[in-house]
């Protein structure tokens, strides 16, 4: 996705605050009309990176290009970007309509035309007719919509959103996610969306940059980040993951045979990784890629025996912890349509078998963990 069709290019950008490296040589290309998310834990530099795109911070090193133009020298008020602030920053002394119309000053529209644009923007965020409301008479969700309308009325090329849904309750948040995605697709504006909620990033984004300690660890589609994480940090941050220390005992074509603690021999797809026999690696397995059964089933590529330690029924799926001899932590397993206890005879303490496919195993370089 790099190169020519990139619309917003972040080129080896570094930002320091004293001794703190808030953003560390981040290199990202974002395409026109893309919904792009910056995902990472608190303090990893998401806001700082976004503020450099808006022009509130200047990179110490590197450069940001928008539509091919370097923008470092450009102050915020001249950039083709608009931002939805984390606290929305609704002007308290103006009513909703004046808030939304704020960015139209330079266009010098006749009053009627301006009113029309404001109403249009408010309808876009489903706040039609709210123009006369005072800004302190709004709920959290409404404030968020006003902030959105206020930014969108300027028809920006890039919309920057800093955890815009962070202050909303779960239900409202899920509704807003859908609306936001629909809005982005109908307008075709490039969105750069900051969040620390991995589920939110997965739902909304075309691509995600997973950040940690100021660095962009992996930039890829949600599917790829989930199924093919490139590092333990990413694998650990996105969803749930079981990690096993392992050693490569032999490689044959596309397959590797691993020697994992507690598991004995296990097979895995190499997936392009060049591994030498004898190398120390970490094998990762998603809980839902493991199949739980009361007896050993034939034909599975990999299998191991354990004891069912804990089970939780969550409605649409169930979570299990299986204790495997020789492993420090229990293995997490997720399954759909499982009845705990009762007919299947799977009570806690029962012996069980875990099976999984070769290509479910993700091979990761071992690092400090």
């Amino acid at each position, binding site marked *: 996705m790099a190169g020519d069709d990139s619309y917003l290019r972040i080129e080896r950008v570094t930002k320091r605050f004293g001794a703190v490296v808030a953003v560390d040589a981040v290199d990202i290309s974002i395409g026109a009309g893309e919904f792009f998310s910056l995902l990472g834990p608190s303090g990893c530099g998401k806001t700082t990176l976004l503020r450099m795109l808006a022009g509130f911070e200047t990179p110490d090193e590197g450069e940001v290009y928008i539509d091919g133009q370097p923008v470092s020298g450009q102050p915020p008020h001249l950039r083709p970007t608009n931002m939805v602030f984390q606290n929305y920053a609704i002007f*308290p002394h103006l009513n909703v309509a004046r808030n939304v119309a*704020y960015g139209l*000053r330079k266009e010098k529209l006749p009053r009627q035309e301006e009113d029309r644009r404001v109403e249009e923007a408010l309808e876009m965020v489903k706040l039609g007719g709210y123009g006369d409301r005072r800004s302190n008479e709004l709920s959290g969700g409404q404030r968020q919509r006003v902030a959105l309308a206020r930014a969108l009325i300027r028809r920006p090329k890039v919309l920057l959103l800093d955890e815009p849904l962070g202050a909303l309750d779960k239900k409202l948040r899920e509704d807003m996610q859908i609306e936001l995605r629909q809005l982005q697709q109908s307008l075709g504006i490039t969105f750069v969306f900051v969040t620390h909620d991995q589920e939110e990033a997965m739902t909304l984004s075309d691509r995600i940059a997973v950040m940690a300690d100021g660095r962009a660890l992996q930039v890829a589609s949600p599917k790829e980040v989930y199924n093919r994480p490139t590092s333990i940090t990413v694998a650990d941050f996105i969803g749930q993951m079981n990690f096993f220390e392992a050693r490569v005992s032999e490689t044959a074509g596309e397959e590797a045979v691993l020697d994992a603690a507690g598991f004995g021999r296990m097979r895995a797809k190499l997936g392009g990784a060049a591994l030498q026999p004898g190398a120390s690696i970490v094998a990762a397995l998603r809980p839902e890629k493991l199949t739980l059964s009361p007896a050993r089933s034939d034909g599975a590529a990999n299998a191991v025996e354990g004891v069912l330690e804990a089970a939780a029924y969550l409605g649409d799926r169930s979570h299990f912890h299986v204790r495997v001899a020789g492993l420090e932590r229990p293995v997490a397993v997720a399954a759909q349509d499982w009845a705990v206890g009762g007919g299947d005879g799977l009570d806690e303490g029962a012996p069980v078998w875990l099976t999984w496919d070769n290509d479910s195993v993700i091979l990761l370089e071992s690092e400090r963990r």
Partner: protein
Amino acid sequence: MSRAAAFYRPNRPLLVYAVLYLAFLYAPVALLPVFSFNDSIYAAFPLQGFTTQWYADMFADEAMHGALWNSVKVGAVAAVFATILGVFGAKAITRFRIRGVKPVLGVIMLPLVIPPVIMGVALLVLLSQSGVQLSLITVTIGHILICVPFSIVTLMASFEGFDKSMEEAAADLGDNSWWAFWRVTFPMVFPGILASLLLCFTISFDEFIMAFFLAGTEQTLPIFIYGQLRFPQRLPGVLALGAMILTATFVIVFLAQWLRGRSPGVAQSGSE
């Protein structure tokens, strides 16, 4: 535990002290209006009868009109300039984390504790050395000097509660820093600015010592009053004038304090 209990027990001596203090402070002030309606040129008990003659006399006094007008001019100009300087000062102190801001703040606040006599003499020396004619302008300069610290203190409260992302939002929506100040910062801290204007005006309006040193031939109202005290028969008129100034000052200071307590930006800028 027992210490805490002792601490919260109603403190009788302190209450007595507070009541006495207030009586001492306001009794003379309360007497002023009383005697201003007394039908006698002596401000003494027993009261002789009700009259509004002193007020009528005072209103008819041409010299008083001139002095009053001078005071209003000086007060208005001093209030505007001191508040403008105060806005810059308060914004700089609260918004940019300047290193060494504490000592600078100390220097700015110094006029609050320097006796006005010293300030007046110092300014007088400086101005006469540089050959400046004493006039209402020099009084105004002196008053600006003593008003700026009050203005900064008043405005700091407004700027401290001001959310920085408001100005950033304005910049993001296409305003350069002047437009952003004018369209967002100014309206949001406006109650503070108004409070500062009112406060500075009353300070200047009531100020005597600096005006005494720096006024030259023209007189402000306090100097006019001081001059009147040489003529015993004018005393009731001064009392009437004093009562009116007192009332006006009270109203303005109350208004200023009330405005200071309510800045629109402070309470609502955060998210729920």
